[in-house]
């Protein structure tokens, strides 16, 4: 039989009843069993789930980030293409504009040249007509006048025509401004 408190010099270092000791052992065994069987596994399971959830979340976030940066890259590429295209179109337009302007200028020049040439031809024709008319008229008048002055008939066509021609040739040799004097 083990000694009890009060029966030995150890005093309170020995239990009042040794049953305390056995009760302590049994109760701790119960607590241990309950905690080992139910409590700790439950906590650890929750922790494991949490870790998994956090890791899953991180992976998801990483995937989202990768996707976002891919999209950004794509947009950048598209933007660069668009920019190139825009500048190409601008360049084209500039070239085209210049060509159109040159073309128009050419057309205008051509037109004006053509108009000038037409006008000149018309003027020439009218002048030639006028010269011819004058030549005929002036010849007749001159002949009549001369005949009156000279009193002789200038009906001899051969002579008269020669004289008129000479006169007109003289006229033509004079400068234009003096023609009407």
């Amino acid at each position, binding site marked *: 039989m083990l000694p009890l*408190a*009060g029966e030995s010099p150890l*005093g*309170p*270092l*020995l*239990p*009042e*009843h*040794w*049953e*305390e*000791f*056995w*009760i*302590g*052992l049994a*109760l*701790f065994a*119960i*607590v*241990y069993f*309950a*905690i*080992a069987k*139910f*409590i*700790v596994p*439950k*906590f*650890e399971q*929750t922790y494991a*789930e*949490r870790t998994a*959830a956090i890791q899953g979340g991180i992976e998801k976030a990483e995937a989202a980030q990768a996707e976002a940066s891919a999209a950004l890259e794509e947009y950048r590429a598209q933007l660069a293409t668009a920019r190139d295209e825009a500048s190409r179109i601008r360049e084209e337009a500039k070239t085209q504009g210049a060509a159109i302007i040159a073309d128009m200028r050419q057309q205008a020049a051509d037109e004006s040249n053509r108009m000038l040439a037409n006008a000149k031809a018309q003027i020439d024709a009218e002048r030639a007509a006028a010269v011819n008319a004058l030549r005929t008229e002036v010849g007749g008048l001159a002949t009549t006048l001369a005949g009156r002055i000279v009193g002789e008939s200038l009906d001899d066509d051969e002579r008269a025509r020669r004289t008129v021609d000479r006169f007109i040739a003289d006229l033509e040799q004079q400068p234009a401004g003096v023609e009407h004097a």
Partner: protein
Amino acid sequence: MGGVIPPLEAEFWPPGEHSFDSRPLLPGVLPDWVNNHAFQAVFSVVLVILFWWWMTRRQTIVPGRKQAVGEMLYDLIRNGIARDILGPQFRAYLPFLVALFSFIWVNNLFGQFFLFMFPTMSKIGYVWALALIAWLVYNGAGIRKHGFFGYLKHATLPAGVPKFLWWLIIPLEFLSNIIVRPLTLGLRLFANLFAGHLVIVVFVVGGTLLLTATEPLAGFSVPLLTTAGVVSLLFSFAIFALELLIGAIQAYIFTVLTAQYVASAIAEDH
């Protein structure tokens, strides 16, 4: 003093070893060891299990307020003691340490709470039971890891001791690691709770006696005795707060040291 102190309180004064006597629940019918302290020990088991059961009910990945409190307590043992001291193999000893801490702490809290106002661990029988379990666990862990003789060598012969000192070191280490450890473990817990409860009894019972004094005692007038009683009772609240702290600390220390012993028993040979 016989005339000053009422007979009932005189029976309990001065406080001493008898202040820790258990009261049999049904004297004569049931054996004497079925007493109030055995009952509160059983009650502590119910409380511990109920508490943890409540804390593990409907746990979610994102903890609510209740679960956060439960996890804080659980992590105090899991991360603060088991993982820190035992390293990666902590999981095997975790239930043991959680059980140890909660069982001791709740029983220490009984010193300040509930119907009992008596810390179970100031009855040394319970403490010796826990010390024996701790002793079995850490030696068992060492033997399982190193084998019986391997563990004996591991526990009694630190690496690097020159041969001519073996005759001195081996008995010393054996004494310190195998024999003294459980004794100090148990005595530390027991003595803290025993002394703390004794101090509380002195202040509360002594204060009550002073407060209810009806005639001068040893030349002190009755109003002076009454005042001293009030001061003594007020001061007992400070002692209660201190005991609350000590109860938690002792439960923690017991657990930490047990974990430490296990860690040293299963440590790799150097």
